[in-house]
């Protein structure tokens, strides 16, 4: 599988007139494979937007190399941009034009006609509001319009900075399905987010960054299973007695809320129920413990905080 985005040792300092420069990215390495949806996750100020700006040639990297669609960026960007659709932060369009006029105007640069404009507007659910002026649009509608603009080129690669920012729950679900469909068609969707649950539900691959450094990257399932210790959650009417009984049997037990976390593979559930039944305790709840990306994210970015 070829890499659609490759970043090596990327560093970006924002210079100011006075004072020390802000280091937004500290030697970031990143590889985004072709096809599917790639989540680029990080807390506020971690450098997601800055990375995207570097990839799109909006800002000049201080050091490091980056390539998009196999060509070095920003040097070869003019040759590959035709295949890249992007939104960066809140996408801005000309406020006194309608949505349709905006898309037709930008599309004209690449010779894209009204039929594709129509299809893009329909894809993001703006078809019936397309003739309103953009300054009357809500935040969510602007976001959708930005997405329509990104789709207009029928791109092989979509680079989307927080695409569901400002959308309502129904809109989020709708866009999530759209992005999944685009990924399944063989396009690459690179999306940044701090909405972890969305990334978990939308993405095939994920990279987590904090303070301009990569913390973790890989398939969502792999990242989750690597991070989760195999354990069982057990519910009991008398958790204290249950914990004693399990500990006497040599198991590692840790109370979490009203449940007990038992360090045992989920396939060993029968062993736990038997041990408890033997001392007259009956299980009210029993399930494998899964780690959500959210917990993992808080866990690893929190650890960084302590280490720093």
């Amino acid at each position, binding site marked *: 599988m070829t890499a659609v985005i490759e970043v090596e040792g990327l560093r970006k300092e924002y210079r100011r007139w006075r004072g020390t420069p802000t280091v937004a990215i500290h030697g970031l390495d990143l590889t985004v494979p072709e096809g599917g949806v790639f989540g680029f996750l990080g807390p506020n100020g971690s450098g997601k937007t800055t990375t995207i*700006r570097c990839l799109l040639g*909006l800002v000049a990297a201080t050091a490091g190399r980056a390539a998009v669609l196999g060509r070095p960026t920003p040097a070869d960007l*003019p040759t590959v*941009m035709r295949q890249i659709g992007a939104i960066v*932060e809140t996408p*801005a*369009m000309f406020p006194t034009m309608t949505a349709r006029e905006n898309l037709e105007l930008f599309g*004209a*640069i690449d010779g894209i006609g009204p039929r594709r404009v129509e299809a893009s507007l329909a894809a993001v659910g703006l078809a019936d509001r397309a003739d309103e002026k953009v300054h009357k649009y809500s935040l969510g509608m602007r976001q959708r319009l930005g997405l329509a603009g990104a789709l207009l080129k029928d791109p092989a690669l979509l680079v989307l900075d927080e695409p569901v920012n400002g959308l309502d729950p129904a809109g989020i679900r709708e866009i999530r399905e759209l992005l999944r469909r685009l990924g399944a068609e063989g396009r690459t969707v690179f999306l940044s987010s701090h909405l972890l649950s969305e990334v978990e539900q939308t993405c095939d691959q994920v990279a987590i960054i904090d303070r301009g450094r990569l913390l973790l990257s890989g398939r969502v399932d792999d990242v989750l299973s690597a991070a989760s210790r195999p354990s069982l959650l057990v519910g009991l009417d008398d958790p204290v007695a249950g914990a004693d009984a399990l500990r006497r049997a040599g198991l590692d037990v840790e109370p979490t809320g009203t449940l007990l976390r038992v360090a045992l593979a989920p396939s060993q559930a029968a062993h736990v129920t038997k041990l408890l039944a033997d001392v007259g305790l009956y299980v009210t709840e029993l399930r494998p413990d899964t780690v959500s990306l959210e917990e993992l994210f808080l866990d690893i970015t929190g650890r960084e905080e302590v280490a720093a």
Partner: protein
Amino acid sequence: MSAAKRFARLTIVEMRRALHRRLVRWMIVLALALCGVMGVIVYLTSRDPSQLARADEHPARMSSWWISGGGDGILTIAALYLVVGAAICGASVVGAEWRAGTITTALIWEPSRLRLHAARTASAGILAFVIGFALEVAFLASALPAVLLNGSTDGTDRAWWTALVLAMFRIALITALVAVLAVSVATIGRNTSAALVTLAAWALVIERLIAALRPQLGRFMISENVATVVPWTQMTDVDFERPPIVALTALVAYLAVVVAVATASFAGRDVVGT
């Protein structure tokens, strides 16, 4: 797609965008409205033949539209409006883009900053020239009823018409140069008002000051050179030689420097949205 074709497309897109700006539209509407008002005034003031005869210059007498050699004639009024309008519109087209953050969107469609900026500069020049010329025609046409009903076309021979059309071309050309200058200055400062204040301060304060303190530097002033190019006559009341072609060359050279600085500053700038 060939580079030339893409550049042409970009230039057209930039023109469409500029023409969509309310300020640009309002400046055109205002100009046309003023033409209408002027037409009425010219008509009313030319109804009395004795008064018309007493006036030195009156638009109802066609020959006073443009007085060859002297750089005079009522056409210069239009020139003033066009120069100010070109500065305001040129600066606002660029300033608005930085303010609204649409520059990011534009760069996502055309990542080559050189090409984008060149297209923008070209579009400003072309539009200003065409609009400028059209408004000059409208301006003069508004006096036409008065000419035909009350005034005269005496002295408008072939040579006069040639001189008039050439003067209109030169004024449209100056309008285009000013628009390009405004675009460039606004690109450097990324702000409409800052650009306009800079241009106004330069033309109205700094050049005046230099001219007052060091009159011999007058030949290098933008305003003096414009005042030489429009009438296409040798600068008078000064003790140096400056044929109009030299004045025009100087203006173009100044502009080239500003355009180069603007292009370099845009090419090397981080675009971080609003």
